């Protein structure tokens, strides 16, 4: 009896942290459902939102879940295990279980977002058709994830992603007939059925049975980077790795620094897709959350879309051995990168304007601010994990103030600038401050 109580106590002690976090997360996630009216007033006020705004949120959530699952980050194995304990066929089952867990987690999150969107924005008449669309895409996602990624799979991934993005935009600007959703859902299910052949036995997905050691170890290394990134909040580690380009003489000419920065963008062309998704997300968010000042949407959007365009500069700052290949000054590099990010930002803002986001003068000021913040972020000194600067709050919690300050290097400039610009100050006051902050971000 005593032993049983003792075991229970130990078990409770061991799970207490997770239990507490779980309870806290549950409370946070369920609280909006008890405060729908208050939240609706806070977010929408008296403004009217498009009739299918909830559908836009659903399409956006499903698009993000789709994109995230099809990174296939479930395909990994610990090299130590592969070296010392890989004498059975267990890794196939393990990867298969990870695949299902990843799929479930992502689409449950998308469903949560969709339900919240419907509750707050109200599109109940679309509910059955929306649910069918959600189900169809979710089934296609898991079938596709089980297959070995190839050219057909890649095309299908992009087609579905583009379709969902278009649907999200259409839902904010016009009426989408439920029939369209039923048709899209039907096509998705048919595609899933067609793709089932080649996806492997139920517990032995092809993606797991065909994965070799190199692929599994690569996946493991990417996972380690992700975990470190999540643990310490260093998003720069997630910048996309570059790929080779088919133009051998791209650097053989004048203005080699500008060419180098351009190569950095072209060799990471995959990062254009998240930038596009960010533009669509901002367009949708403006429509469904009309009370949010476009200054914030544009500023934050340009920042997130722009960071990958400064990846070349980021790699030079992160690896001193790479910096030695360029004999130019740091300022030249910063200016060239800022120019590249600015060009990308202008294209991005043009795209956002298509989605009817009002581009006020204040919103335009957010663009140089975000460019400055991007350059400041990617030129941040490497994180010093020996300087966590842990401070204890009065209620006993420990906060790594030093680490947070290091991580704020870059974003802080954006937040301060957007506060100044978004306060509604006279343009004659706000503009010089914003431009000075932007110049500071680029030059320092």
């Amino acid at each position, binding site marked *: 009896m005593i032993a049983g109580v003792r075991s229970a106590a130990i078990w409770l002690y061991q799970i207490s942290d997770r239990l507490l976090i779980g309870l806290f997360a549950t409370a946070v996630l369920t609280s909006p459902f008890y405060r729908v009216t208050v939240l609706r007033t806070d977010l929408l006020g008296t403004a009217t939102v498009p009739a299918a705004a909830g559908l836009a949120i659903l399409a956006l959530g499903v698009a993000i879940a789709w994109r995230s699952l099809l990174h296939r980050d479930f395909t990994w194995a610990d090299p130590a295990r592969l070296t010392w304990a890989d004498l059975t066929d267990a890794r196939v089952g393990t990867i298969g279980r990870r695949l299902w867990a990843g799929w479930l987690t992502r689409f449950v999150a998308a469903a949560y977002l969709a339900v919240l969107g419907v509750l707050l924005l109200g599109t109940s008449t679309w509910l059955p058709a929306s649910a069918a669309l959600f189900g169809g895409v979710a089934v296609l996602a898991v079938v596709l994830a089980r297959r070995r990624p190839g050219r057909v799979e890649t095309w299908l991934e992009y087609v579905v992603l583009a379709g969902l993005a278009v649907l999200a935009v259409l839902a904010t600007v016009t009426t989408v007939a439920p029939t369209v959703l039923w048709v899209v859902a039907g096509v998705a299910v048919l595609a899933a059925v067609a793709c089932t052949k080649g996806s492997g036995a139920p517990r032995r997905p092809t993606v797991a049975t065909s994965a070799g050691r190199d692929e599994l170890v690569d996946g493991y290394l990417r996972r380690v980077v992700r975990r470190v990134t999540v643990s310490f909040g260093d998003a720069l580690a997630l910048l996309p790795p*570059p790929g080779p380009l088919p133009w051998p003489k791209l650097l053989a000419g004048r203005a080699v*620094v500008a060419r*180098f920065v351009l190569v950095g963008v072209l060799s990471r062309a995959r990062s254009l897709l998240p930038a596009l998704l960010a533009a669509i997300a901002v367009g949708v968010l403006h429509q469904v959350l009309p009370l949010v000042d476009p200054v914030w949407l544009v500023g934050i959007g340009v920042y997130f879309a722009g960071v990958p365009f400064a990846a070349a500069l980021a790699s030079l700052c992160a*690896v001193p*051995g790479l910096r*030695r*290949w360029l004999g130019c000054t740091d300022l030249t590099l910063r200016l060239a990168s800022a120019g590249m990010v600015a060009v990308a930002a202008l294209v991005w803002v043009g795209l956002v304007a298509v989605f009817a986001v009002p581009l006020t003068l204040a919103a335009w000021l957010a663009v140089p601010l975000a460019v400055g913040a991007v350059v400041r972020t990617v030129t941040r000194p490497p994180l010093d994990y020996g300087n966590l600067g842990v401070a204890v709050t009065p209620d006993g919690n420990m906060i790594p103030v030093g680490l947070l300050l290091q991580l704020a290097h870059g974003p802080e400039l954006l937040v301060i600038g957007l506060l100044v610009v978004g306060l509604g100050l006279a343009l004659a006051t706000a503009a010089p401050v914003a431009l000075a902050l932007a110049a500071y971000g680029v030059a320092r």
Partner: protein
Amino acid sequence: MVTAEFGVSAGDDWLFQELTLDLLAGQCLALTGPNGTGKSTLLHCLYGLRPPTEGFVTVCGSRPDERAPDFRRSVSVLLDDSALFDELSPRQHLDLLFRSFPGATPPDDLVAEWLEPAGLGHRVDVAAGQLSAGQRRRLLLLGALARPHDLVLLDEPERALDTAGLDWLAGLVNADTEEGAAAVLATHSRVLVEACADLILDLG
């Protein structure tokens, strides 16, 4: 080119103490000795990555500071942290080098003058990420030696090189010193020491 009288400690022990260096333009100094005797540390001191525990170090007339662009332009290095852009080819690396360093003149025929002698003539347009360890090492050595400099610091440059590669490297270092640059090599290669060194400092 290098004037120094210094010592460096690691914890409670001294790696070396009261060490005097006086290296002139056109001379090559080889640092030899077993692992852990301070060869790389000495190179780090000359590049300003680590201050000496005692004494002073002067390189190209000033205190070494790799954060200063002028110093980086005068002193070229191959250290453990030297790296390649995996997505760029050997040709693109050298384009970057010759077109971004002040005073560097892009050669008429980059391949014939630099890449073919380095044994990279058939891999000119292959991404560096796909080169072998020896080919990557040769490209890194070109990165240190092909651009204008007054002093070059090479940490175990012989690593991953075959016999032909060692001969090529020795020729490159000798050509460099004949043109007036000074060189400091931390090396375990007797071949390299015999072929290049004017001065030898054994830290063992």
